[in-house]
């Protein structure tokens, strides 16, 4: 929790100092400050709350970055300093958050801290130098490139910050989290940065009219992202229902697929899989038993781990054939198909599904000693069936879950 405390303390300190400085010196160019404040507040208002979306308020982020990097306004130089930037961003974000709190959504301080720190970073890099006239020789295209370079730097810092926050909240490994954040920069992150630069430049050329004109394309992007998140959510529900088919059919005990999926995801995260790989792993784990639907006589209790190897592979192949029809990523079908192969020939996701499935089947009815005995069995069988590194990771994940049962692994 120390990193979390540190980041929050830094953000609070920055905000307090900037607020005091602004109150001391007064506000330069109140019209510009008001326009950007409204933009950030509107961006914050249209923020959606979803777990899947990383950039939760692209318009607000782009607005605060462009205010931090705003040089001239319609040709006349502006005089606002870094402290004023942080103050305006903070006030607008808080105002835009009020309706969300009113509706009963609990706000997290994380995104506010990130917003304050990144806007502060960009402003500190840019505003003092600009106000002192250091960029007077950088006119023309070089100025545009300078803004882009500053934004890239800011985005990198923001990614590190986000990964650190996520790491201290969830205790997942820092490396994969940072990699996911950096990969996210290529998608919507690049759009946010480019919009920030364009808005700063466009206001420099055309004045504040540029703000509403260029908001609209980014709002469109935000809308597409939201619809994408919505369809992903329903898709996931449908996959989960398809996975429940085996339970309704009496092939497997209730909740088996869901438990295997949750545990597989935790193990995959522990082994450092990326976000798309985790999605493939989760879908494959949800549907790993789907091949049993094609059997005329169900396997007793759906326990495939104790079947002869040939039968296991046949069920896996049948399952792969069903999954191929579902239109999911072909990688999911491959994982389902190869879950019964010896681990040396398997992709990592298939190794995870196989080991976790076996653990779940062995541990579920074995009483309080079950988990330990199941792990022991898996360890003894690692010679051919279960990959040792996956079993060790499983043991780590389980011991973490035991020591901290409140946290969702």
């Amino acid at each position, binding site marked *: 929790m120390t990193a979390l405390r540190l980041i929050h303390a830094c953000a609070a300190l920055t905000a307090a100092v900037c607020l005091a400085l602004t109150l001391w010196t007064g506000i330069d160019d109140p019209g510009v400050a008001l326009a950007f404040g409204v933009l950030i507040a509107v961006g914050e208002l249209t923020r959606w709350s979803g777990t899947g979306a990383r950039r939760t308020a692209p318009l607000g982020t782009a607005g605060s970055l462009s205010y931090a990097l705003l040089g001239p306004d319609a040709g006349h130089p502006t005089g606002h300093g870094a402290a004023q930037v942080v103050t305006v961003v903070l006030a607008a974000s808080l105002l835009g958050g009020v309706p969300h709190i009113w509706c009963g959504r609990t706000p997290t301080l994380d995104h506010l801290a990130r917003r304050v720190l990144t806007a502060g970073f960009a402003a500190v890099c840019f505003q003092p130098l600009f106000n002192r006239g250091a960029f007077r020789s950088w*006119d*023309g*295209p070089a*100025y*545009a*490139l300078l803004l*882009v370079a500053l934004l890239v730097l800011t985005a990198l810092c923001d990614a590190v910050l986000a990964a650190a926050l996520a790491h201290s909240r969830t205790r997942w490994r820092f490396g994969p989290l940072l990699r996911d954040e950096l990969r996210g920069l290529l*998608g*919507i992150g*690049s*759009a946010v940065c480019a*919009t920030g*630069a*364009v808005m700063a*430049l*466009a206001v*420099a*050329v*055309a*004045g504040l*009219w540029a703000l509403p*004109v*260029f908001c*609209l*394309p*980014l709002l*469109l*992007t935000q809308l*597409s*992202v939201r*619809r*994408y998140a919505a*369809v*992903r959510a*329903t*898709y996931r*529900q*449908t*996959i989960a*229902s*398809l996975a*429940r*088919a085996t339970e*309704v059919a*009496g092939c497997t005990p209730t909740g088996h697929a869901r438990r295997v999926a949750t545990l597989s995801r935790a193990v995959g995260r522990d082994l450092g899989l990326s976000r798309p790989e985790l999605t493939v792993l989760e879908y494959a784990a949800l549907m790993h038993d*789907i091949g049993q*639907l*094609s059997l*005329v*006589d169900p396997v007793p209790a759906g326990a495939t781990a104790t079947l002869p190897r040939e039968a296991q592979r*046949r069920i896996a192949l*049948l399952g792969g*054939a*069903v*999954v*191929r*029809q*579902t*239109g*999911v990523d072909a990688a999911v079908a491959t994982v389902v198909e190869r879950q019964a192969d010896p681990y040396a020939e398997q992709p990592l996701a298939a190794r995870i599904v196989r080991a976790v499935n076996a653990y779940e089947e062995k541990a579920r009815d074995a009483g309080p000693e079950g988990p330990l005995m199941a792990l022991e069995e898996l360890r003894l069988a690692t010679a051919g069936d279960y990959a040792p590194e996956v079993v060790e990771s499983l043991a780590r994940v389980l011991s973490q879950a035991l020591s901290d049962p409140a946290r969702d692994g």
Partner: protein
Amino acid sequence: MEAAVPARAQGYVACVALLAVLCVLPLHATRTPWWALALLAALYAACEHAVRRRFGGTFYPVLLAGAFLLPPAAAALVPLPAALLAHVEHRPVLPRRVWRAAQPVLAVWAAAQVHWALGGRDAVVAHAFPYALVPAGAAVLAFCVVLTALDGGVLVAAERVPARRAWRGLLSRSLAPVAVHGLAGLMMAVLWRSRYGPVSALLVLLPMCVSCWVFAQYHRERAAHQATIRALVQAVDIKDGYTRGHSERVGRASVLIARELGLDDERVEVLRFAGILHDVGKLGVPTRLLRKDGPLTPEERRIIELHPEYGHEMVRGISFLGEARAAILHHHERLDGSGYPYGLAGGQIPECARVVAVADAFDAMTSTRSYSRARPVEAAVRELERCAGTHFDPRMVTALVRALRRHGWHPAVTADDAPHTVPAQQRAAGRRSGAHR
């Protein structure tokens, strides 16, 4: 356009091409900023290549920026290289290529002409906001009008679509996205003419590209989602060979009834899913019972009658299905209360369940089952009308009869349309596993 292009379509394309050439002709008389034209044309070709190849959409900001920056005859040249270089998937290649080149040339020319006439160029150079929005808006409108007029024309000429249907809704559908692209194009033009130069204008394209990318992802994910719904149904088909295509057909019949009842589009869509998924609970019934030839014992019948509850249990977690979940649970209820699982009567049965019940019975009678041969549509309708009021809601039966009279019944469309090889393997695999027992 089919492989053999009708003469009037060829004539139409030739006319459009001739007009396009006429638009470009005054080029020698105007002072053209050639490097800007070349840069914009190359940019458009690159964007079009990336966007069309990867995401299957169109990308107008560069075209409209060209219309805002260049004189009309020069702006008209911007889309040309992209159209000439692009890959044409279907034959005949030549008329298609000419058409794809000539159509945007005319549209961009019209937009640039309107923009020029309203003094937009000076507004862009002087960054005179908000006035710059007026000529830009008019240009976007002109662009849209020309595009849709030409599009409708080619539908009429090549595919013999009636003129009124060809143009209906085309303009209103395309105006909003083109307007957003127009704003991006305007911003691009303003930045291009500013002292920050074309480099800053390029930055505008990045968010637009990302937007296209996310939109394409959305469509891909939605298609995958629908395939998964179908897979739920196919899982039933694996168990119960005789019902192949039954689910799809019940979905279609439910849609027919829902349209006839005048339900709104959203509920029609939900009813389609309700029809497709109504028997999904059969997954929970042992395969041996589903495939049994000959009469069922009362015990076996009770087990089969559990399938609506199994189905409801399965789709409970899919929130977008909405009232379709109730339809799946209650599609075997009868109006007089003699149905299952709950024995609801009359208005207690949800409306959508009453729709699916009629559609289900109709398709069961008109298709071949293990225990009976298919009956003709008229006989099935007579049977439905006989049972209306006791088993079925008379309103739904009348709606189905009316819809059948209007549209006919073409049950050829089945799940067999789906790629064929995999189900065949699966059935073979299912048989193998049967042989193993």
